[in-house]
């Protein structure tokens, strides 16, 4: 009875908690102000757009409708707008800007253009004074902002209006062509109104990219993309904030390492570890909820394998656009559909592993599991499967034109990169994640009651709650909203959800694993978690804005995004180094252990996470982060390089590591496929490294060079991708992809299959629900603990598993 009334106090000094709360509050206050600025000062969508004679060209509804045509046809998974999207097709902002400015130059007396708006070869090879005048006139016309804020009306110059009229047929030809030459399905978009609206949307983005902001000498997109025809070049802001963020990075790393070098006793350095002895995992009883996770991991592995196959097909389009080893794949599985699947599955399979690991760890933390958790687990799995396969089927139907308008939005696809799934599936996924958080709560309820809100059980639960909460923010991105606004909310999910809150939940889980194994003291783990939350959030929250340099948001987004995302690399570097020390504690095997450490490959996957966190998120991320680099680089293979190394390298490796940790308890020790765990470790890491270093990095460097030297438009054209050197690099990726799939993904599937097989075989064991006894969990012994003399004070926080 006494135990119920005792609530354990906070294990650290209050300053730790206060620092984290202040950092979070400040970060989200700034982000709130930037949200307001996005709505207020984002590139405006005119109510009506006229030519100089007062004839209506298009209106705001047309732009919104065109945006929905763009999204619902999966074109953001084919090309991009404002630099964000996929990389096979062109960037349509840059594309429209180039073609329309060429047409305008011709209309102003400059060199003639063909029907696609491209200069006729050789037309400007000689000195051409008339052409120079025409070019200057075009610059003046494009930069002159005739948008009336009061009426919401915009008047374009005659040449801009002519360009719009001439480019409708061009984009009509492009999207309605009856073959697969572009990697899209034949006759992808044929409705004339849709094509007109789509062109209006492109025209609006191009207008925002060239027209000067009121009172400024740069455009709504901070002069992006680079385009000399409209005098678009990097702004002073891009240069200055690049320099400042570079200084912040170098200074920050120096300061942080200096400070911790001087005051380095955070509590876990230099302290001798208790001798541990691990219980054979297969003798640990599992609860019904824990057993249900075997199926989660199996589904995870299936989705991972599908994602790999789909990714291989996506890559093949880049190496051989119109033929998949002689077969016209785009008729059935066009590029934009495969990339939609690839990107969505990357989130789905990783999230499946995280969800399962949470369900698995919760009873270990709470030391109990209430009735019905197993059934809830299976229900959640089915709900997850409905969302996943609903998304895959819906996006197929949407991109193939079976669904239309609202039906596409609700059941097909919304089409935002990484938030491609239809609204119905998005809502259901949020509901599923809330259910998952509730599942964790019902397991941990009594434990939470007895703990200070700053201690690990609460942090575990709160970090879990943040996952549905921040994923739900994605619901604010509506396909009909102004594009800058949708991008703002989309990146709350893409950046804040992934890079901050998943990272925090990960840290809590990994730290808790070590605590449960008894190899790290709870106080030390709590320090690491709070340090992690604090340091990540200092840069990570406001750093979200580094995705919005050129999306029509004000320059404040660029300044703050550049600065804070640069200092985000500081804790990344520091915590990677710290993680080594922490991992060493977590798997300390210098002591004499009676039983083999059971999580060799789970820990090695964590080692890989540390490596890829530093390389993929830190080095490759910073490589594309400075505004001045991003200005030329955005939407090139360097972005893909960062995305693969960070997403697969950090979250993918972590998802596999978590699955191996949990499956180790489900598969009997004698049957544990250590060899295959080893193969999957080497297969995924070597395959991923090959992918990055053989193709993505060199191709990205080439594309960046092309962008700076020849122009962003040129760097995003098919001509670049089909260049013989680029094509050689694309093909060089093949061996790495094969290694990744055969030796990485397939062994993971096999191990997960064994998890299901042996969980079924152990059905009935330990299914007595309710209070669990101490034997349920991993048991650790410490020589010093049992030898402690009676006069020694008791250990302040015994690990839950002991």
């Amino acid at each position, binding site marked *: 009875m006494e135990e119920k009334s005792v609530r354990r106090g906070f294990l650290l000094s209050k300053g730790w908690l206060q620092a984290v709360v202040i950092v979070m509050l400040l970060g989200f206050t700034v982000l709130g102000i930037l949200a307001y600025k996005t709505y207020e000062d984002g590139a405006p969508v005119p109510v009506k757009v006229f030519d100089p004679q007062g004839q209506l060209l298009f209106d705001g509804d047309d732009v919104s409708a065109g945006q929905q045509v763009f999204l619902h046809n999966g074109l953001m998974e084919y090309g991009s707008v404002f630099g964000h999207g996929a990389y096979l097709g062109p960037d349509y902002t840059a594309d429209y800007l180039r073609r329309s400015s060429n047409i305008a130059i011709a209309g102003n007396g400059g060199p003639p253009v063909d029907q696609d708006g491209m200069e006729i070869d050789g037309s400007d090879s000689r000195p051409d004074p008339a052409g120079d005048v025409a070019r200057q006139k075009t610059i003046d016309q494009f930069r002159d902002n005739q948008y009336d804020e009061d009426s919401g009306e915009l008047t374009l110059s005659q040449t801009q209006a002519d360009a719009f009229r001439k480019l409708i047929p061009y984009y009509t030809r492009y999207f309605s062509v009856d073959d697969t030459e572009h990697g899209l399905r034949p006759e992808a978009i044929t409705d004339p109104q849709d094509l007109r609206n789509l062109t209006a949307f492109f025209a609006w983005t191009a207008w925002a990219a060239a027209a000067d902001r009121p009172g400024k000498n740069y455009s709504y997109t901070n002069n992006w993309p680079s385009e000399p025809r409209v005098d678009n070049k990097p702004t002073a802001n891009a240069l200055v904030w690049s320099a400042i963020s570079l200084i912040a990075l170098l200074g920050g790393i120096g300061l942080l390492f200096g400070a911790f070098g001087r005051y*380095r006793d955070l*509590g876990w*350095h*230099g*302290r*001798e570890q*208790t001798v541990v*002895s691990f*219980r054979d995992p297969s003798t640990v009883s599992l609860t019904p909820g824990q057993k249900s996770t075997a199926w989660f991991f199996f589904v995870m592995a299936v989705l991972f394998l599908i994602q790999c196959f789909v990714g291989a097909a996506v890559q093949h389009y880049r190496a051989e656009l119109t033929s998949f080893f002689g077969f016209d794949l785009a008729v059935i599985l066009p590029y934009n559909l495969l990339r939609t699947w690839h990107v969505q599955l990357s989130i789905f399979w990783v999230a499946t592993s995280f969800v399962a690991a949470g369900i698995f760890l919760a009873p270990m933390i709470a030391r109990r599991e209430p009735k019905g958790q197993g059934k809830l687990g299976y229900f959640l799995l089915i709900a997850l499967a409905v969302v996943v396969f609903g998304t895959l089927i819906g996006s197929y139907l949407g991109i193939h034109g079976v669904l239309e308008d609202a039906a596409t939005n609700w059941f097909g696809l919304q089409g935002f990169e990484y938030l491609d799934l239809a609204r119905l599936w998005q809502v259901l996924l949020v509901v599923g994640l809330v259910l998952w958080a509730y599942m964790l709560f019902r397991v941990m309820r009594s434990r939470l009651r007895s703990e200070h809100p700053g201690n690990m059980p609460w942090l575990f639960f709160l970090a879990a709650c943040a996952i549905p909460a921040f994923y739900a923010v994605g619901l604010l991105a509506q396909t009909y909203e102004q594009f800058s606004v949708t991008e703002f909310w989309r990146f709350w999910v893409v950046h804040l959800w992934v890079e901050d809150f998943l990272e925090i939940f990960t840290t809590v889980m990994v730290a808790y694993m070590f605590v449960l194994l008894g190899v790290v003291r709870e106080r030390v783990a709590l320090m690491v978690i709070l340090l992690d939350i604090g340091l990540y959030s200092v840069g990570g929250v406001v750093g979200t804005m580094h995705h919005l340099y050129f999306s029509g948001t004000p320059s404040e987004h660029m300044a703050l995004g550049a600065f804070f995302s640069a200092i985000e690399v500081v804790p990344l570097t520091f915590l990677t*180094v710290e993680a*080594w*020390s922490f*991992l*060493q504690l977590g*798997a300390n*095997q*210098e002591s*004499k*252990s*009676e*039983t*083999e*450490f059971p999580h*060799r490959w789970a*820990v*090695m996957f964590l*080692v*890989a996470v540390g*490596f890829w966190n530093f390389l993929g998120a830190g080095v490759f991320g910073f490589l594309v982060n400075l505004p001045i680099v991003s200005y030329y680089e955005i939407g090139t293979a360097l972005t893909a390089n960062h995305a693969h190394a960070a997403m697969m390298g950090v979250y993918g490796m972590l998802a596999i590591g978590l699955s191996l940790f949990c499956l180790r308890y489900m598969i009997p020790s004698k049957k544990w496929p250590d060899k295959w765990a080893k193969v999957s470790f*080497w297969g995924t*890491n*070597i395959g991923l*490294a*090959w992918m990055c*270093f*053989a193709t993505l990095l*060199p191709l990205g*460097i*080439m594309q960046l060079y092309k962008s700076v030297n020849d122009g962003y438009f040129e760097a995003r054209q098919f001509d670049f991708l089909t260049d013989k*050197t680029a094509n*050689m690099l694309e093909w*060089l990726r093949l061996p790495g992809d094969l290694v990744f799939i055969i030796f990485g993904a397939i062994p993971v599937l096999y191990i997960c299959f064994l998890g299901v097989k042996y969980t079924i075989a152990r059905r009935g064991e330990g299914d007595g629900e309710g209070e669990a006894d*101490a*034997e349920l969990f991993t*048991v*650790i*012994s*410490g*020589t*010093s*603990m*049992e*030898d*402690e*003399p009676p006069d*020694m*004070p008791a*250990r302040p926080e*015994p690990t839950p598993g*002991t």
Partner: protein
Amino acid sequence: MNTEVLLAGGYGVLLLAGAMVLEWLSRHTHNRSQAWRTSGFDYDAQHDFWVCHKGEQLWPAEFDREKRLVRYRAKAAVCNACPAKGDCTDSNHGREITRAVDSWPHSEAGRFHRAIAVMLVLLAACELGVVLIRNHDPVEIAVLLPLLWVSVVALWWLARDLVRTPDGFPEAMPAHGNRIGRNKQT
């Protein structure tokens, strides 16, 4: 000279440099982590003992051949009476420090980094080889061949070392008895 040759040569050098940096970083991280594990203790290499921040000496107590480490131990009576014991050790036999040559998981993490370095050099060799097949004017051969030779030599050296280095994963040591059951009441 073909642009592709210049690009391949430059990128080949970049990969080789990347492999070298990775090797250095791996060693540096290992040493740093080792140093942090003994934070607050000074090692006297000449006389082979450690001194803790309270001035107590830790002398070699055991050499573990299998794990390739030396265990140093302070006097139990001194440590048990020390006010800093709570932040230093749980043991009542005196604080122990180990000096390891290559403990796990660093031993295996080291192999992981070495394997990535091997892969980078292999990739450099492959890329240079492919470009050499596609471009083989005398000047191009003069640029590519030496780089290819350096890559192959580096590859042979690193791969040989990788194969020879054990993973260091410790085996279970049942001879020391199982203490699991005696700890349930904690």
